[in-house]
């Protein structure tokens, strides 16, 4: 049973669809006219939203779109803090985590689209964020950090910082490090 073919939206052009190897394909082109680079895709847990990086005035900038319609969704706090890097979304897209530029430093942050808050993630001393992946329920985050010249993946518990963003019908299991995400 195939889901409806992705519709050609106003702001996203479908350059071609095909059915190969049991897959339904869509090429997502960037907003605006013409072709441009589009990188670092990240899907919400339910697949409804797509975050990606584009160039805006020469600066790498995250955009958030509805995957099917291409509608661009507003982000409140990130303008002026490019280059953006490594976007990651929670299950329903309530939270967008990414690495931004803060002065001379890279800073991992999470924008809560429901409350409008911006949460900085203060990592242990000596760790510089290079990339990240937010768990769909937003109760954990994996951060790629550089430390002592090496890159490592480290995991942090966010249950004391963020409300869970769960799939509809998914039961609350108590949160914390041991909770399914």
């Amino acid at each position, binding site marked *: 049973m195939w889901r409806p073919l992705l519709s050609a939206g106003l702001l996203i052009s479908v350059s071609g669809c095909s059915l190969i190897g049991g897959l339904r394909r869509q090429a997502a082109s960037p907003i605006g006219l013409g072709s441009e680079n589009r990188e670092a*895709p990240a899907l919400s847990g339910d697949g409804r939203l797509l975050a990606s990086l584009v160039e805006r005035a020469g600066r790498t900038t995250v955009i958030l779109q509805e995957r099917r319609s291409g509608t661009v969704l507003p982000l409140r706090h990130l303008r002026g803090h490019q280059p953006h890097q490594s976007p990651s979304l929670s299950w329903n897209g309530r939270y967008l985590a990414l690495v931004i530029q803060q002065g001379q430093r890279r800073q991992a942050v999470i924008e809560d689209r429901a409350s409008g808050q911006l949460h900085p993630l203060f990592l242990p001393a000596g760790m510089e964020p290079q990339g990240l992946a937010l768990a769909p329920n937003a109760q954990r985050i994996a951060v790629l950090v550089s430390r002592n010249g090496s890159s490592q993946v480290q995991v942090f518990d966010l249950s004391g910082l963020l409300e869970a963003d769960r799939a509809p019908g998914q039961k609350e299991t108590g949160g914390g490090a041991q909770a399914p995400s």
Partner: protein
Amino acid sequence: MRGALLALLLLLLGGCGAGGVRPLPGLNQQLAKLNNGKSPAIAGPWLAFLASRSAGRLQVQLIDLDRSAPVPLPGLNRPDAQPISVAVDQSGEQLAVVRQREDRTELVLYRRLLQSSQPIPMDPAGVPRSVSFSANGRVLAVEVSRGGLWQIDLLELP
């Protein structure tokens, strides 16, 4: 100036955010033993990423976060392939991997139950670089080099 404003904004909006981020010491000590970490992906209790043990080659690593234990991936890490990007779905059953093999770059879908990898051709032709899974396991977003541009292909799985 912008940096100072953002710092102020972070303090005002973040509130007690610093106290809300808690490292997982036992797990992180294990992860710190792996080198050249890359491409973390997390869904459900599963953490997938690329790393090497000692001075070895990069390999796809899958960790069960609830048990803080690595999960074997028979047949995925091949001696003739170098992984570039990995993504996992919430069930932990499907992993999407971009890898270099025999002078070409390919996207494969690995199913743990079957212990097998199925190549996913790029159409139109292109060179994949990174991949993202929707946690529900239904959609892949693939960053592809095509015609001198980086593009994103969206693939709905059956």
